[in-house]
Protein backbone atom coordinates (compact mmCIF):
# COMPACT_ATOMS: atom_id res chain seq x y z
CA UNK A 1 0.00 0.00 0.00
CA UNK A 2 1.41 3.35 -1.00
CA UNK A 3 2.46 5.91 1.57
CA UNK A 4 0.19 8.97 1.70
CA UNK A 5 1.81 12.40 1.80
CA UNK A 6 -0.54 15.19 2.84
CA UNK A 7 0.45 18.57 1.50
CA UNK A 8 0.49 20.64 -1.67
CA UNK A 9 3.22 19.61 -4.12
CA UNK A 10 4.25 23.27 -4.37
CA UNK A 11 5.10 23.61 -0.68
CA UNK A 12 8.72 23.31 0.47
CA UNK A 13 8.32 20.91 3.39
CA UNK A 14 6.22 18.34 1.50
CA UNK A 15 8.82 18.59 -1.32
CA UNK A 16 11.55 17.67 1.17
CA UNK A 17 9.64 14.47 1.97
CA UNK A 18 8.82 13.66 -1.66
CA UNK A 19 12.47 14.05 -2.70
CA UNK A 20 13.44 11.54 -0.01
CA UNK A 21 10.73 9.06 -0.99
CA UNK A 22 11.83 9.22 -4.65
CA UNK A 23 15.48 8.71 -3.60
CA UNK A 24 14.46 5.67 -1.54
CA UNK A 25 12.17 4.25 -4.29
CA UNK A 26 9.20 4.33 -1.92
CA UNK A 27 5.81 4.52 -3.64
CA UNK A 28 3.58 7.32 -2.46
CA UNK A 29 0.50 9.31 -3.35
CA UNK A 30 -0.06 12.98 -2.64
CA UNK A 31 -3.19 14.15 -0.86
CA UNK A 32 -3.47 17.85 -1.67
CA UNK A 33 -4.13 20.20 1.25
CA UNK A 34 -5.59 23.61 0.46
CA UNK A 35 -3.30 25.97 2.37
CA UNK A 36 -4.70 29.06 0.66
CA UNK A 37 -8.09 28.38 2.22
CA UNK A 38 -6.70 27.30 5.57
CA UNK A 39 -7.56 23.61 5.34
CA UNK A 40 -4.58 22.80 7.55
CA UNK A 41 -6.08 24.76 10.47
CA UNK A 42 -9.44 22.99 10.42
CA UNK A 43 -10.37 20.53 13.17
CA UNK A 44 -10.27 17.48 10.85
CA UNK A 45 -6.71 18.26 9.78
CA UNK A 46 -5.61 19.08 13.33
CA UNK A 47 -6.34 15.45 14.25
CA UNK A 48 -3.58 14.55 11.75
CA UNK A 49 -1.14 17.31 12.70
CA UNK A 50 -1.93 19.20 15.91
CA UNK A 51 0.18 22.24 14.96
CA UNK A 52 -1.80 22.72 11.73
CA UNK A 53 1.16 22.31 9.37
CA UNK A 54 2.08 20.23 6.31
CA UNK A 55 3.33 17.65 5.55
CA UNK A 56 1.87 14.65 7.33
CA UNK A 57 2.68 11.13 6.20
CA UNK A 58 0.47 8.07 6.67
CA UNK A 59 2.16 4.71 6.24
CA UNK A 60 -0.59 2.19 6.91
CA UNK A 61 -1.68 3.02 10.45
CA UNK A 62 1.58 4.81 11.29
CA UNK A 63 1.42 8.57 11.08
CA UNK A 64 4.29 11.04 11.22
CA UNK A 65 4.72 14.78 10.89
CA UNK A 66 7.72 17.20 10.77
CA UNK A 67 9.39 16.81 7.35
CA UNK A 68 12.90 16.43 8.80
CA UNK A 69 11.71 13.59 11.08
CA UNK A 70 9.92 11.91 8.15
CA UNK A 71 13.01 11.92 5.92
CA UNK A 72 15.12 10.50 8.78
CA UNK A 73 12.56 7.73 9.29
CA UNK A 74 12.52 6.64 5.65
CA UNK A 75 16.29 6.89 5.30
CA UNK A 76 16.60 4.55 8.31
CA UNK A 77 13.68 2.27 7.41
CA UNK A 78 15.10 1.32 3.99
CA UNK A 79 18.87 1.24 4.45
CA UNK A 80 19.40 -1.08 1.48
CA UNK A 81 16.82 0.32 -0.92
CA UNK A 82 17.43 3.30 -3.20
CA UNK A 83 20.11 5.85 -2.34
CA UNK A 84 22.00 5.55 0.95
CA UNK A 85 21.22 8.91 2.52
CA UNK A 86 22.90 8.43 5.92
CA UNK A 87 26.46 7.26 5.28
CA UNK A 88 27.99 4.12 6.78
CA UNK A 89 29.74 4.83 10.08
CA UNK A 90 28.55 6.53 13.26
CA UNK A 91 30.82 9.45 12.34
CA UNK A 92 29.22 9.73 8.86
CA UNK A 93 25.82 9.82 10.54
CA UNK A 94 26.95 12.49 13.01
CA UNK A 95 28.11 14.73 10.17
CA UNK A 96 24.79 14.22 8.35
CA UNK A 97 23.01 15.26 11.58
CA UNK A 98 25.32 18.24 12.00
CA UNK A 99 24.55 19.66 8.55
CA UNK A 100 20.83 18.87 8.92
CA UNK A 101 20.94 21.02 12.06
CA UNK A 102 22.84 23.75 10.20
CA UNK A 103 20.05 23.75 7.58
CA UNK A 104 17.39 23.93 10.28
CA UNK A 105 18.98 26.56 12.52
CA UNK A 106 21.43 28.67 10.49
CA UNK A 107 19.91 28.56 7.01
CA UNK A 108 16.16 27.91 7.08
CA UNK A 109 14.88 30.90 9.05
CA UNK A 110 16.68 33.38 6.79
CA UNK A 111 15.27 31.80 3.61
CA UNK A 112 11.83 31.47 5.20
CA UNK A 113 11.79 35.18 6.08
CA UNK A 114 12.95 36.19 2.59
CA UNK A 115 10.28 34.05 0.91
CA UNK A 116 7.56 35.24 3.31
CA UNK A 117 8.33 38.94 2.77
CA UNK A 118 9.17 38.76 -0.92
CA UNK A 119 6.64 36.24 -2.25
CA UNK A 120 3.96 35.11 0.20
CA UNK A 121 2.80 38.40 1.76
CA UNK A 122 2.60 40.32 -1.55
CA UNK A 123 0.54 37.46 -3.03
CA UNK A 124 -1.87 37.86 -0.13
CA UNK A 125 -2.16 41.57 -0.93
CA UNK A 126 0.05 42.68 1.99
CA UNK A 127 3.25 44.65 1.66
CA UNK A 128 6.53 42.83 2.23
CA UNK A 129 9.29 44.35 4.36
CA UNK A 130 12.07 44.94 1.84
CA UNK A 131 14.47 46.16 4.50
CA UNK A 132 14.08 42.85 6.31
CA UNK A 133 14.64 41.02 3.02
CA UNK A 134 17.94 42.90 2.46
CA UNK A 135 19.06 42.15 6.05
CA UNK A 136 18.30 38.46 5.68
CA UNK A 137 19.99 38.35 2.29
CA UNK A 138 23.14 39.75 3.82
CA UNK A 139 23.09 37.32 6.74
CA UNK A 140 22.38 34.47 4.34
CA UNK A 141 25.42 35.52 2.29
CA UNK A 142 27.57 35.13 5.40
CA UNK A 143 26.14 31.68 6.08
CA UNK A 144 26.68 30.64 2.46
CA UNK A 145 30.32 31.72 2.73
CA UNK A 146 30.70 28.95 5.31
CA UNK A 147 28.99 26.50 2.95
CA UNK A 148 31.32 27.64 0.15
CA UNK A 149 34.33 26.84 2.29
CA UNK A 150 32.93 23.48 3.35
CA UNK A 151 32.13 22.51 -0.26
CA UNK A 152 35.70 23.31 -1.19
CA UNK A 153 36.79 20.58 1.25
CA UNK A 154 34.17 17.92 0.49
CA UNK A 155 31.96 17.19 -2.51
CA UNK A 156 28.76 17.26 -0.44
CA UNK A 157 27.95 18.74 2.95
CA UNK A 158 28.49 15.69 5.17
CA UNK A 159 31.34 14.23 3.13
CA UNK A 160 32.02 12.91 -0.35
CA UNK A 161 28.57 11.34 -0.78
CA UNK A 162 25.07 12.78 -1.21
CA UNK A 163 23.01 12.55 1.98
CA UNK A 164 19.88 13.83 3.73
CA UNK A 165 21.85 16.96 4.64
CA UNK A 166 22.11 18.00 0.97
CA UNK A 167 18.57 16.80 0.19
CA UNK A 168 17.09 18.92 2.97
CA UNK A 169 18.27 22.09 1.19
CA UNK A 170 16.66 21.31 -2.18
CA UNK A 171 13.24 22.98 -1.78
CA UNK A 172 14.52 26.24 -0.26
CA UNK A 173 17.42 26.74 -2.69
CA UNK A 174 15.11 25.91 -5.56
CA UNK A 175 12.75 28.69 -4.45
CA UNK A 176 15.60 31.12 -3.81
CA UNK A 177 17.10 30.64 -7.27
CA UNK A 178 13.80 30.81 -9.15
CA UNK A 179 10.83 32.77 -7.81
CA UNK A 180 12.79 34.74 -5.22
CA UNK A 181 15.29 35.90 -7.84
CA UNK A 182 18.31 35.32 -5.58
CA UNK A 183 20.19 32.90 -7.80
CA UNK A 184 23.26 35.13 -7.57
CA UNK A 185 23.79 33.95 -3.97
CA UNK A 186 24.57 30.51 -5.38
CA UNK A 187 26.06 31.45 -8.76
CA UNK A 188 28.62 33.81 -7.22
CA UNK A 189 30.06 30.97 -5.13
CA UNK A 190 31.92 28.47 -7.31
CA UNK A 191 31.77 25.42 -5.03
CA UNK A 192 28.16 26.05 -4.07
CA UNK A 193 27.23 26.50 -7.70
CA UNK A 194 28.79 23.15 -8.66
CA UNK A 195 27.10 21.43 -5.71
CA UNK A 196 23.74 22.98 -6.58
CA UNK A 197 24.03 21.92 -10.26
CA UNK A 198 24.80 18.40 -9.08
CA UNK A 199 22.04 17.94 -6.51
CA UNK A 200 19.30 19.77 -8.41
CA UNK A 201 19.87 17.53 -11.42
CA UNK A 202 19.38 14.32 -9.52
CA UNK A 203 16.51 12.27 -11.03
CA UNK A 204 14.61 12.23 -7.71
CA UNK A 205 14.53 16.03 -7.49
CA UNK A 206 13.54 16.33 -11.14
CA UNK A 207 10.60 14.02 -10.41
CA UNK A 208 9.50 16.35 -7.60
CA UNK A 209 9.69 19.34 -9.97
CA UNK A 210 7.67 17.42 -12.56
CA UNK A 211 4.86 16.91 -10.03
CA UNK A 212 4.30 20.67 -10.07
CA UNK A 213 3.49 20.78 -13.79
Amino acid at each position, binding site marked *: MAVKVYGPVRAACPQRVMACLFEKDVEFEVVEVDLVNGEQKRPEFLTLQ*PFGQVPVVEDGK*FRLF*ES*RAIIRYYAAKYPNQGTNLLGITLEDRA*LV*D*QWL*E*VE*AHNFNELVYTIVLQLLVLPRMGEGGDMHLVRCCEQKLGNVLDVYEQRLGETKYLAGDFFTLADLSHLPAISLLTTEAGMGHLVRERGNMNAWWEDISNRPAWKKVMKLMT
Partner: protein
Amino acid sequence: MALKVYGIPMSTCTARVLSSIYEKEADFQIVPVNLQAGEHKQPSYLATKNPFGQIPALEDGDLTLFESRAITKYVATKYNKGTDLLRLGNLKESAMVGVWLEVEAQTYNPPISTIVYQLVILPKYGGTPKEEVIKANEEKLAKVLDVYEERLSKSKYLAGDFYSLADLHHVPYTYYMMKTPKASLINSRPHVKAWWEDITSRPAIKKATEGMTLA
Protein backbone atom coordinates in the same frame (compact mmCIF):
# COMPACT_ATOMS: atom_id res chain seq x y z
CA MET B 1 39.57 9.04 26.05
CA ALA B 2 37.19 11.65 27.38
CA LEU B 3 34.99 13.80 25.19
CA LYS B 4 35.93 17.48 25.05
CA VAL B 5 33.06 19.94 25.14
CA TYR B 6 33.94 23.47 24.07
CA GLY B 7 31.49 25.88 25.68
CA ILE B 8 30.26 27.12 29.05
CA PRO B 9 27.87 25.30 31.42
CA MET B 10 25.57 28.32 31.80
CA SER B 11 24.90 28.44 28.05
CA THR B 12 21.66 26.74 27.02
CA CYS B 13 23.10 24.81 24.09
CA THR B 14 26.14 23.66 26.07
CA ALA B 15 23.78 22.51 28.86
CA ARG B 16 21.80 20.54 26.29
CA VAL B 17 24.97 18.63 25.36
CA LEU B 18 26.04 18.15 28.99
CA SER B 19 22.58 16.76 29.85
CA SER B 20 22.98 14.06 27.21
CA ILE B 21 26.51 13.23 28.37
CA TYR B 22 25.31 12.86 31.96
CA GLU B 23 22.40 10.67 30.85
CA LYS B 24 24.84 8.39 29.00
CA GLU B 25 27.36 8.39 31.90
CA ALA B 26 30.18 9.28 29.51
CA ASP B 27 33.50 10.84 30.50
CA PHE B 28 34.08 14.39 29.42
CA GLN B 29 35.88 17.60 30.15
CA ILE B 30 34.73 21.15 29.54
CA VAL B 31 37.04 23.46 27.65
CA PRO B 32 35.72 26.93 28.48
CA VAL B 33 35.30 29.36 25.59
CA ASN B 34 35.68 33.03 26.48
CA LEU B 35 32.60 34.57 24.87
CA GLN B 36 33.24 38.00 26.42
CA ALA B 37 36.61 38.12 24.67
CA GLY B 38 35.02 36.91 21.42
CA GLU B 39 37.03 33.69 21.40
CA HIS B 40 34.27 31.94 19.41
CA LYS B 41 34.69 34.42 16.55
CA GLN B 42 38.47 34.08 16.30
CA PRO B 43 39.93 32.51 13.14
CA SER B 44 41.34 29.51 15.01
CA TYR B 45 37.95 28.69 16.59
CA LEU B 46 36.18 29.15 13.26
CA ALA B 47 38.72 26.93 11.53
CA THR B 48 38.92 24.12 14.06
CA LYS B 49 35.68 24.06 16.09
CA ASN B 50 32.65 25.74 14.50
CA PRO B 51 32.76 27.79 11.29
CA PHE B 52 29.55 29.57 12.31
CA GLY B 53 31.27 30.98 15.41
CA GLN B 54 28.93 29.39 17.95
CA ILE B 55 29.21 27.18 21.03
CA PRO B 56 29.20 24.31 21.82
CA ALA B 57 31.55 22.13 19.82
CA LEU B 58 32.57 18.56 20.62
CA GLU B 59 35.88 16.81 20.06
CA ASP B 60 36.01 13.04 20.22
CA GLY B 61 39.45 11.98 19.05
CA ASP B 62 39.60 12.90 15.36
CA LEU B 63 35.96 13.86 15.10
CA THR B 64 34.84 17.44 15.67
CA LEU B 65 31.13 18.20 15.72
CA PHE B 66 29.04 21.32 16.18
CA GLU B 67 25.25 21.96 16.51
CA SER B 68 24.10 20.85 19.97
CA ARG B 69 21.22 18.76 18.62
CA ALA B 70 23.61 16.79 16.38
CA ILE B 71 26.07 16.34 19.26
CA THR B 72 23.40 14.98 21.63
CA LYS B 73 22.34 12.46 18.96
CA TYR B 74 25.93 11.34 18.49
CA VAL B 75 26.41 10.90 22.25
CA ALA B 76 23.07 9.09 22.55
CA THR B 77 23.99 6.72 19.72
CA LYS B 78 27.64 6.06 20.58
CA TYR B 79 27.31 5.07 24.23
CA ASN B 80 25.44 1.99 25.44
CA LYS B 81 25.44 2.91 29.13
CA GLY B 82 22.81 4.98 30.89
CA THR B 83 19.44 6.00 29.50
CA ASP B 84 18.09 4.81 26.14
CA LEU B 85 17.53 8.27 24.68
CA LEU B 86 16.81 7.43 21.04
CA ARG B 87 14.98 4.04 21.19
CA LEU B 88 17.02 2.85 18.21
CA GLY B 89 15.98 -0.76 18.84
CA ASN B 90 12.42 0.09 17.78
CA LEU B 91 12.02 1.96 14.50
CA LYS B 92 8.56 3.34 15.24
CA GLU B 93 9.55 4.54 18.73
CA SER B 94 12.67 6.20 17.33
CA ALA B 95 10.51 7.81 14.63
CA MET B 96 8.27 9.34 17.32
CA VAL B 97 11.36 10.60 19.13
CA GLY B 98 12.36 12.11 15.78
CA VAL B 99 9.00 13.89 15.42
CA TRP B 100 9.19 15.56 18.85
CA LEU B 101 12.88 16.43 18.41
CA GLU B 102 11.78 18.39 15.33
CA VAL B 103 8.81 19.96 17.13
CA GLU B 104 11.22 21.26 19.80
CA ALA B 105 13.63 22.59 17.19
CA GLN B 106 11.14 24.10 14.74
CA THR B 107 8.12 25.10 16.82
CA TYR B 108 9.00 25.32 20.54
CA ASN B 109 12.51 26.76 20.34
CA PRO B 110 11.87 29.93 18.30
CA PRO B 111 9.36 31.58 20.69
CA ILE B 112 10.94 30.34 23.94
CA SER B 113 14.49 31.23 22.98
CA THR B 114 13.27 34.73 22.09
CA ILE B 115 11.51 35.09 25.47
CA VAL B 116 14.62 33.89 27.34
CA TYR B 117 16.85 36.16 25.29
CA GLN B 118 14.66 39.18 26.10
CA LEU B 119 14.07 38.46 29.78
CA VAL B 120 17.27 36.75 30.91
CA ILE B 121 20.16 37.34 28.53
CA LEU B 122 19.59 40.89 27.31
CA PRO B 123 19.33 42.47 30.81
CA LYS B 124 22.56 40.73 31.88
CA TYR B 125 24.37 42.69 29.16
CA GLY B 126 22.73 46.02 29.88
CA GLY B 127 19.97 45.78 27.26
CA THR B 128 16.28 46.64 27.66
CA PRO B 129 13.67 43.95 26.99
CA LYS B 130 11.12 44.75 24.27
CA GLU B 131 7.59 44.26 25.56
CA GLU B 132 5.98 43.77 22.12
CA VAL B 133 8.47 41.04 21.23
CA ILE B 134 7.91 39.24 24.54
CA LYS B 135 4.13 39.47 24.20
CA ALA B 136 4.08 38.19 20.61
CA ASN B 137 6.27 35.22 21.47
CA GLU B 138 4.36 34.47 24.65
CA GLU B 139 1.19 34.17 22.58
CA LYS B 140 2.90 31.82 20.11
CA LEU B 141 4.37 29.70 22.90
CA ALA B 142 0.99 29.50 24.67
CA LYS B 143 -0.58 27.97 21.54
CA VAL B 144 2.27 25.47 21.24
CA LEU B 145 1.93 24.55 24.93
CA ASP B 146 -1.79 23.94 24.44
CA VAL B 147 -0.82 21.20 21.96
CA TYR B 148 1.74 19.87 24.46
CA GLU B 149 -0.90 19.83 27.24
CA GLU B 150 -3.15 17.73 25.03
CA ARG B 151 -0.29 15.42 24.03
CA LEU B 152 0.94 14.95 27.61
CA SER B 153 -2.55 14.13 28.81
CA LYS B 154 -2.38 11.01 26.62
CA SER B 155 1.31 10.15 26.83
CA LYS B 156 3.64 10.35 29.84
CA TYR B 157 6.46 11.86 27.80
CA LEU B 158 6.48 13.54 24.42
CA ALA B 159 7.44 10.60 22.18
CA GLY B 160 5.49 8.01 24.16
CA ASP B 161 5.46 6.49 27.62
CA PHE B 162 9.25 6.63 27.77
CA TYR B 163 11.62 9.52 28.48
CA SER B 164 13.74 10.36 25.46
CA LEU B 165 16.09 12.88 23.90
CA ALA B 166 13.00 14.79 22.73
CA ASP B 167 12.09 15.66 26.34
CA LEU B 168 15.74 16.42 27.20
CA HIS B 169 16.12 18.97 24.39
CA HIS B 170 13.42 21.13 25.99
CA VAL B 171 15.24 21.53 29.30
CA PRO B 172 17.75 24.36 28.86
CA TYR B 173 15.53 27.19 27.60
CA THR B 174 12.58 26.09 29.72
CA TYR B 175 14.82 26.06 32.80
CA TYR B 176 15.68 29.73 32.30
CA MET B 177 12.10 30.69 31.45
CA MET B 178 10.97 29.13 34.74
CA LYS B 179 13.08 31.76 36.53
CA THR B 180 10.96 34.53 34.99
CA PRO B 181 7.28 35.51 35.41
CA LYS B 182 6.58 33.51 32.21
CA ALA B 183 6.89 30.34 34.32
CA SER B 184 3.12 30.62 34.47
CA LEU B 185 2.99 29.28 30.90
CA ILE B 186 4.19 25.94 32.25
CA ASN B 187 2.61 26.07 35.71
CA SER B 188 -0.89 26.80 34.39
CA ARG B 189 -0.97 23.58 32.35
CA PRO B 190 -1.20 20.61 34.73
CA HIS B 191 0.14 17.88 32.43
CA VAL B 192 2.96 20.07 31.13
CA LYS B 193 3.80 21.04 34.71
CA ALA B 194 3.87 17.41 35.84
CA TRP B 195 6.08 16.48 32.89
CA TRP B 196 8.44 19.38 33.65
CA GLU B 197 8.75 18.39 37.31
CA ASP B 198 9.39 14.78 36.33
CA ILE B 199 12.15 15.44 33.81
CA THR B 200 13.91 18.04 35.95
CA SER B 201 14.04 15.66 38.89
CA ARG B 202 16.29 13.30 36.91
CA PRO B 203 19.83 13.17 38.37
CA ALA B 204 21.45 13.86 34.97
CA ILE B 205 19.26 16.92 34.40
CA LYS B 206 19.91 18.18 37.94
CA LYS B 207 23.66 17.98 37.32
CA ALA B 208 23.37 19.92 34.06
CA THR B 209 21.08 22.61 35.46
CA GLU B 210 23.37 23.18 38.47
CA GLY B 211 25.75 24.87 36.06
CA MET B 212 23.06 27.09 34.56
CA THR B 213 23.71 30.16 36.64
CA LEU B 214 22.70 32.95 34.28
CA ALA B 215 19.41 33.47 36.14
